[in-house]
């Protein structure tokens, strides 16, 4: 059994990490930290885990925690991970970080997108930004892994096949991403914006321009395409708790051929257990819909074409807390340790939700 620790286990992502890891056949949760809830039962903060665990939260004390886990999952806020992770990395632990602090390869991008100077730029090149469907072999050999943002991974998986297939002739300078995000995407800390009366029934354009995840999307897709990609992204909060739908608009220079696009997706995701290509001619769910991935580690991808304008519409749907966060992190750990990639993650999504 692999001993795992969860830093900042009291948030929504921490809760999902604990839920997945407590049920993982090859993992044993050694500890979960929480500054606010130290000493409290985990199930009082995550009531879905009542009867699943009697674990209590502990405070973060690296001298005690370093020896008690082999792998550490960090669900700390952006900026906090960068302060804590270096000492754990220096101690030789395997780390899966879910903050943005080790996602970007270029330290000069942190002041631009996150407003702070990175305290350990030397560590950035040691972290692998893990999207197993795109860089599985790299993740297998890694000790330090960063898991992408929920909107980023959903967008990237929907777009990667189109950008790596040069023959499609996609305009790499003008890619527009429209994201619709459930309320859990803003975390478990309440605010006026998340108060029920203010959040319920919204279609809220909370970040029409300048979304931080554009940096990760451009970094990954530029590497795949071999040219500098520019992504224009808008994000909306919508009336669901879990789930993300990203609708991306690309423009091709020539005629768009549906079968060529099908081929690009099939080639990209053949053998990938957590990416499903959804483009069906029947039923109410003909294209990716977050409703059909809730509770699972799936990312559904699909597309439509518009010949008149040369537009390709690429869609991606995930459960933002699973494939968009905790599930991708556990999948990454499985690869890092040489376990079955789907271990602890083979659940189907819920229906109906």
């Amino acid at each position: 059994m692999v001993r795992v620790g969860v830093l900042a286990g009291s948030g929504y992502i921490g809760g999902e990490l604990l839920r997945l890891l407590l049920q993982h056949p090859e993992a044993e949760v050694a500890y979960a930290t929480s500054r606010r809830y130290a000493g409290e039962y985990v199930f009082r903060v995550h009531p879905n885990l009542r009867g699943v665990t009697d674990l209590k939260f502990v405070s973060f004390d690296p001298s005690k925690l370093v020896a008690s886990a082999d792998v550490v999952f960090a669900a700390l806020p952006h900026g906090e991970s960068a302060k804590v992770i270096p000492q754990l990395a220096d101690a030789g632990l395997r780390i899966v970080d879910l903050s943005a602090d080790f996602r970007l390869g270029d330290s000069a991008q942190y002041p631009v997108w996150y407003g702070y100077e990175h305290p350990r730029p030397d560590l950035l090149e040691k972290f692998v930004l893990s999207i197993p469907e795109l860089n599985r072999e790299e993740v297998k050999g890694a000790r330090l892994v960063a898991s992408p943002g929920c909107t980023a991974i959903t967008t990237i998986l929907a777009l990667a096949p189109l950008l790596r297939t040069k023959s499609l002739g996609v305009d790499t300078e003008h890619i527009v991403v429209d994201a619709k995000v459930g309320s859990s995407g803003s975390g478990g800390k309440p605010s006026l914006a998340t108060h029920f009366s203010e959040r319920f029934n919204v279609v809220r354009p909370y970040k029409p321009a300048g979304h931080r995840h554009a940096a990760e999307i451009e970094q990954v897709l530029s590497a795949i395409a071999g040219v500098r990609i520019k992504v224009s992204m808008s994000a909306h909060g919508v009336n669901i708790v879990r789930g993300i739908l990203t609708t991306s608009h690309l423009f091709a220079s020539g005629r768009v051929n549906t079968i060529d696009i099908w081929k690009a997706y099939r080639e990209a995701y053949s053998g990938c257990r957590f990416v499903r290509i959804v483009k069906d001619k029947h039923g109410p769910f003909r294209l990716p819909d977050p409703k059909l991935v809730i509770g699972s580690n799936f990312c559904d991808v699909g597309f439509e074409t518009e010949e008149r304008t040369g537009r390709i519409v690429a869609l991606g749907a995930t459960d933002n807390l699973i494939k968009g966060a905790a599930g991708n992190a556990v999948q990454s750990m499985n690869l890092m340790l040489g376990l079955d990639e789907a271990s602890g993650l083979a659940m189907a999504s819920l229906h109906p939700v």
Partner: protein
Amino acid sequence: MNTSCNECGAALTVPDDAIVGELVSCRDCSSEYEVAELSNGSAVLKPAEKVGEDWGE
């Protein structure tokens, strides 16, 4: 009998004991085809007729 889907390019298998008029559905995109002709171990398919979701409105 093997052929491919005109819509998505997926491999499409027509059962060896298929008869004319039988419907074949694509596993990937669910396009439906009707077996129009059978000769010498191969099948000619045509798109199956169906009523659109808007009932032709």
